[in-house]
C-alpha cells in the first residue's frame, strides 16, 4: 500500500508492502544510499538514522510503523555537532573501508547532542551498537573526544 513518510523534511509517498524496512525504502525507493546495510537484524548499526532526533536502526523498522515521525538520514545532517564530528572524522582519518562510518557518524552526533562532554564510558555505551569490522575504534574514540573539545569552543 502507499505510505506517506517524512524524510529529511520532505514528504515521500512510497507504494511498498507494509513490512518493508525503512532501510530499503530509503535506499531503493527514495535513493538515499548513504544509510548502509550490514546485517538487517539490528546488530551492526550501519543503517542508523534518526527518528525524531533519536538514533534508530532503520533495517528493523517497518515502514508502516513510522507514522508521522520525522526521519533524518546522513544526507541531511546539519548543525554544529554534525560539523564537529565530521571534521574530527577527517582530521583523525577515522575511516578505513568506510562502510560502517555513516552509522558511526550518526551515532556519534547523537551522543554529542545529548552529552556535551562524554566520558569513555559514555562513548562505550553510545557506540557499542555500531560494529566496525576494520576496527577503527581507537580513532572513533579519539575523534569523539576531539569533536567534544571543538564544541566546547
Amino acid at each position, binding site marked *: 500500500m502507499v505510505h506517506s513518510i517524512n524524510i529529511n523534511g520532505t514528504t515521500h509517498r512510497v507504494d511498498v508492502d507494509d513490512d518493508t524496512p525503512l532501510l530499503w525504502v530509503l535506499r531503493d525507493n527514495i535513493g538515499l544510499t548513504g544509510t548502509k546495510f550490514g546485517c538487517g537484524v539490528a*546488530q551492526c548499526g550501519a543503517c542508523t538514522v534518526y527518528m525524531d532526533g533519536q538514533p534508530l536502526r532503520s533495517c528493523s523498522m517497518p515502514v508502516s510503523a513510522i507514522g508521522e515521525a520525522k526521519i533524518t538520514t546522513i544526507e541531511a545532517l546539519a548543525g554544529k555537532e554534525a560539523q564537529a564530528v565530521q571534521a574530527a572524522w577527517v582530521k583523525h582519518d577515522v575511516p578505513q573501508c568506510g*562502510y560502517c562510518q*555513516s552509522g558511526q557518524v550518526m551515532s556519534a552526533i547523537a551522543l554529542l547532542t545529548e552529552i556535551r562532554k562524554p566520558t569513555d564510558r559514555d562513548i562505550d555505551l553510545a557506540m557499542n551498537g555500531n*560494529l566496525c569490522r576494520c576496527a577503527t575504534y581507537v580513532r572513533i574514540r579519539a575523534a569523539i573526544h576531539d569533536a567534544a573539545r571543538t564544541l566546547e569552543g
Partner: protein
Amino acid sequence: MTAHDISLSRRNLLKGTGALVIGLSLPQSGRAQSGAAQAFRPGGAATFAPNAFVRIAADDTVTVLVKHIEFGQGPFTGLATLVAEELDADWGQMRAEHAPADVKLYANLAFGVQGTGGSTAIANSFEQMRKAGATARAMLVQAAAEAWKVPAGEITVEKGVLKHASGKQGRFGEFAEAASKLQAPAEVKLKDPAQFKLIGKEGAVNRLDSPGKSTGKTQFTIDIRTPEMLTVVVARPPRFGGKVASFDATEAKKIKGVVDVQQIGSGVAVYGTGMWPALKGREALKVTWDESGAEKRGSRELIAEYRALARTPGTVAGKHGDAEAVLGKADKVIEAEYVFPYLAHAPMEPLDGYLEWNAQGALARFGSQFQTTEHQTIATILELPPEKVQLETMLAGGSFGRRAQVSQHLAAELAMVGKAIGPNRPVKLVWTREDDLAGGYYRPLFVHRMRGAVKDGKITAWTNSIVGQSFFLGTPFEAMTVKNGIDATMVEGANELPYEVADFRCEVHATKVGVPTLWWRSVGHTHTGYAVECFIDQLLQEAGQDPVAGRLALMGKHPRLVGVLKAVADMAKWNGPGPVDGRARGVAVVESFNSYVAQIAEVSLGAGGEPKVHKVWCAVDCGIAVNPDIIRAQMEGGIGFGLGHILYGELTLDQGRPVQANFDSYRSLRIHEMPEVEVRILPSTEKPSGVGEPGVPPIGPAVANALARLGRGRPLSLPMVGGTV
C-alpha cells in the same frame, strides 16, 4: 627454503596463478583488455596523460589511477603519495580513482596479473608510481621551459607550482595541454630519500577517501542504482556441495515486486524491483536440495579426525637434526595441541556486484580484487569477446581476503545472474549477512600438535604436526602452488622458526573436506603465529627464562625481528610478564609479508572470567614507511580484527551446516572491547613491505601468553570465549 622464501610464499603462489592464467588465455586477451580500458575514459576530462597512472587536468587536479582496490588498507592515498612526491605536487590537488581492468598496464608486479593481496600494494608500486610522477614532472617542466624560453634545468617545482628565477611561475594545469604534446622522457631520475617531502613524513598527507566516507557520499557497489535495474538474491544450498534438485516459484512470484526466478549454477536467483521484494521472494521459494554429494561432517567430527591425524606421520615441511630422537630421550616432553576454528571474513559490505550487458558488450562494476581473472570469467560466461567487457573496480566495504577468490565464484555468479534474465536488464546481485556467513570460503579449521623438550634452561627439541585444508590442493592451480605435496600457505611461519632450536621437525597433513576455504587476513600466520608464539613462550617459561630476553637470546640471525622486539619492550617498559595488580603482560613477535611486528598485550580477567585487554604496544618494521599514519591505522585495525577473532570468532559446522547466522552469533569486537593501542614505526631504509596483514598475527599469542600468567594457561582452542571445544 629459507625464511625469506617462505615469507614470499603467498606472492609466489599468486605469481604462479598469473602465469597460468596468462598461459591459458592467450596473448590476445591481453590486447583485448586494453581495448576495454580505452573505452573507459579514466581520469575524466584530464588533458595530460603522461602514462597509465597520472592524469592532469586544466583545473590543476592530478588524478592517480590506482591499480589496487581500495577497501580500507589505503592504496588510494599510498599510491597518490608516491606520485605526488616525485611530481612535487601539492597534496590538495591530488585525487585517486581505480584503474580499469588491463593486465598490460596495471598488473601487480608481484603477481603478473592485476590484483591485490599479500600486502603488496605499496611494495610493488614503490618505484613504478614514483617513476610515473617523475615522468609527469619532467614533461611539465619541459613545457614550461619552452613557454618561458628558459633552460629546463633552471625550473624548480614546489607544491604544484613551477618557478623560474626570472619571476615566472605557473601551475600544472596551465601546462597540461602543452605537456601532452611532448614525448615522454625515456629515463627519469628519482629523488634521493633524503629529499622526500611526503614519503615517511608525519602529517604530510591526509587520506583522500576520508571526506566521502565521513559524509555518506562514497559510492559502494551496493549503492549502484540504474533505470530498470533489478536486485537479485540467490538461494544457495544449506550444505556445501548441495545442488538444486527442483524448485517451485509459484508463491515467490506472487510477491509484489518479484520480477523473475531463475535457476543458475550456484542456486536459484530471485529478481526483485528492490532488496525487500527479492528477499521476500526468496523466503517464499520452495527449493528441494540434492545433498547426496554434500559435506555432512561438523566441526566436532573434523576436529576429532584432525587430532587423530596429527598423531600420524605427515609430509615433512621442515627439519634439522633429529627432534624425535631427542624427545624420546627427554626427561619431560612438553606438549600443546591448538585447535583453530573456521572463520568468516565478514567484510562490512557483503559481497555484491552490478552487471549490464547485451550483444554489443557488458559493464560489470564491483569490488574486484583480481581484475584480470574476473574480467575473463565474466566475458567467458556471457560469451562475449573480452574487449567488449568493461570492468570497473568499486570502492569496497572491506575484504580481509574474501574478495580475492581463487574460484572466481562471485564474478561467475554475477555473470550467471545477468545471463539468466537476458540482455538489457541491469542486475545488482547482493549477498545478505546470512549468505555471507553461511557461504563458505572460510579460514580453514586447523590443528597444531606441538611437542618440545627443555634441558638446563635450553630448548632442545621442537616438533609440530599441522593438520588442515589447503585452498590450493584440488584447484587448477595445484601444480604451480604446491611443491613436494606441501602448500606453503599451510606452514608459513611454522616450518622454519626464527628461534635457534637444535633439533626441529615440522610435518603437515592436508585434509579433504567439502567446505570451501580461502586466505583470511594474514593467511597461514593466523594459526602458525599463534601456535609458534604460544609454544615458544611455554617452553621459555619451562626453562625459567623471561619471555623477551629468552626470545632475544634465540633469534640472533634475525636482526629485524630483534629490532621490533627490543622496541616494543622499550615502549612497554617491560619488566617481566607479571601479573601486577591483576594485570599480566604477554608478548609475541611475527614476521609476515616481509614485515616484522612485535606486540605486548596487557590483560586482566574481566566480568565472568573473560579476558579483558587493556593496552597493546606494537612495534613494526615495514621498511621505508610511506604513510606513517596509515601504517599506524593498519596496526590498530589489525590488532582489533585479530583480537575480535581470537576472543570470539568461530564459524561452527553442525552436520555440515554453518551454525552462526549473523552478527548476533558471529560475535565481532565492539568499541568497549578495543584496547588502547600505541604504535612505533621503526626507521628503515629497506624497501617498503606490507602493512595490511602483519598487524594481525601477534595479538592472539600475546593475549594467550598474558593469560598464562593469570593462571589460565594458554588457551588451547580458539576462540577464547565460548568455543565449540
